């Protein structure tokens, strides 16, 4: 197990290199003169030169990348070209909000998804199964923002029980979490169902029944533990999507998360902020995947066989 974790960590190194390289190139690949794009049409030549100097754009690429990496290791993502604040300081609070949002979305997705997945598998080919799976298709095909608007219409405008926007109180959390989690719940429910159906016919499940284990324990202990293995992977992937897909939900509910920050930064051509956000998101994504791998391994003892 330790060897496995170590090996996985070693494998992360090239991935992280790739991620930083892509993020670094964001600035380089902007068509035309980056400084011009950032500073705007009206900027004078002197201003442009100043900007190039600040961003180090006059050095050879390799030097720039080296410096970029060096700064990165010190958690220095540069400064915003608009406000001059360190990018790290701008991103950190917004990032925390987005992670919170994604986590709450996950809570909805996982609990609802697993519940309906198991329900539908244990009652396979019955009304409950068909009903659940139809709901799942609906949940999947409904666009996020639309669901968000519907919720606002019902709960805030018609019933007036939940606030339309903001972040912090539990009332503010409910609707965004549902908005975020619905599609994920549908994906997880479908995955859980098919994985449970596969497992429920396995010989060891029959063995559990033959031992006299009650049907409830057969399903929740013997079958579910095994069915969970592929589901964990899907859950991990979903979390990644949530982080990057939070922007729509954030906009609908006017939450000041990382997504909105990026959108604003793009429209203001504040590339260091965009770059910083990309790096933070990508590293989080990679790290979540790493955790999923380990969870997968802990759940699935058989991989130890090599």
């Amino acid at each position, binding site marked *: 197990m330790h*060897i496995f974790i*170590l*090996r996985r960590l*070693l494998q992360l190194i090239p991935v992280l290199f790739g991620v930083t390289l892509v993020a670094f190139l964001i600035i380089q690949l902007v068509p035309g003169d980056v400084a011009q794009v950032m500073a705007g049409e009206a900027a004078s030549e002197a201003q442009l030169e100043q900007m190039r100097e600040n961003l180090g754009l006059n050095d050879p690429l390799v030097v720039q990348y080296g410096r970029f990496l060096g700064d990165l290791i010190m958690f220095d993502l540069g400064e915003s070209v608009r406000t001059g604040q360190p990018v790290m300081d701008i991103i950190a609070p917004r990032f925390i909000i987005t992670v919170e949002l994604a986590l709450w979305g996950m809570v909805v997705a996982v609990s609802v998804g697993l519940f309906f997945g198991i329900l539908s598998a244990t009652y396979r080919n019955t009304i409950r199964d068909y009903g659940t799976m139809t709901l799942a298709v609906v949940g999947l095909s409904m666009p996020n923002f639309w669901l968000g608007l519907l919720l606002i219409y019902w709960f805030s405008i018609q019933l007036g029980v939940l606030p339309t926007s903001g972040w912090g109180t539990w009332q503010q959390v409910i609707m965004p979490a549902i908005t975020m989690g619905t599609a994920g719940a549908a994906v997880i429910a479908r995955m859980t169902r098919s994985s449970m159906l596969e497992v429920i016919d396995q010989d060891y499940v029959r063995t559990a029944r033959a031992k006299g284990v009650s049907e409830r324990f057969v399903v929740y202990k013997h079958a579910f533990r095994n069915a969970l293995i592929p589901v964990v992977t899907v859950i991990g992937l979903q979390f990644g999507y949530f982080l990057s897909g939070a922007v729509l939900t954030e906009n609908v509910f006017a939450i000041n998360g990382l997504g909105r920050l990026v959108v604003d930064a793009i429209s203001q051509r504040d590339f260091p902020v965009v770059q910083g956000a990309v790096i933070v998101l990508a590293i989080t994504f990679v790290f979540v995947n790493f955790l999923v791998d380990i969870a997968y391994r802990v759940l699935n003892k058989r991989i130890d066989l*090599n």
Partner: protein
Amino acid sequence: MTTPLFEAKNLQKYFPVKGGILNRTQAQVKAVDDVSFAINPGETLSIVGESGCGKSTTGRAILRLDDPTDGEILFEGQNLMELSKSDLRQKRKEMQIIFQDPYASLNPRQKVKQILDEAMAIQGVVPKAKRPERIRELMEVVGLRPEQAERYPFQFSGGQRQRIGIARALSVDPKLIVCDEAVSALDVSTQAQVLNLLKKLQKDLDLTYLFISHDLGVVRHISDRVIVMYLGKIVEIADKRDLFDSPRHPYTRALLSAIPIPDPSKTRERIVLQGDVPSPMNPPSGCRFHTRCPFATDICKAEEPELRSTTFMNETHKAACHHIEKIAETEKTSIV
């Protein structure tokens, strides 16, 4: 002495086991370790032994389906290890293989006639125009009706599918056929049909078989000579009669005594071996059987026994045990 059709000399096949942080090769599975034997034209040589002892690996290695790690394989005197890929492909039509699971080895989307046609096309042995005729012939040879060639594999029973596998192997006029557990998945009544067919074909077409099986009843029925393997090594090789009537190696004896006989009136002394087969990753020192052998002594742990014959054995009968003589002695006294 006839010149053998096929010879394996010091055949070795190791599989690397990867692991550790950098996923380097950590150990070797010694699946086949220094195995030598010869097959004479027209005979059936069988390999028996328990699961994992290296039977299939041997079968695959001699056809170079998996390249052996070391050793020589001679077919009609020619060393197959030295052949290029294309020359080897030419040779393959002389050596065919039939597998255990007839279903897995037949393309489910091809009709039987396409399966047979393709086999002939690949080897280029039968001109296209002649193939329909040849397919009819093959179907009859293996006891199927020619019009059944229009069907798909799933439309046949297990025994019939195995016949298709045999027809495919025969389609290129091979000299040697390796049968890897060819009847193991079949019910006794169907198994008897296929075994009888294999025997008949051998007589009619002058075939040579290397017959791999874990079922000693089947092996006795079909073979002329038998090899017993344990953990990648040959422990005994003999003419069929010698092997079944006077086995010399303690493992062979245990194996034979462990098989239930379908006759409740016969009671026999059974040697129940203790323990499991050790891992081929680090096989026991000396004689690989010493961890389970009731006759093991110190020398067995230290020195690897050679395959050998003694005065009271036929010269074609060889066993790899330090104590052949002593064991034969105890047998005499226990019978008296």
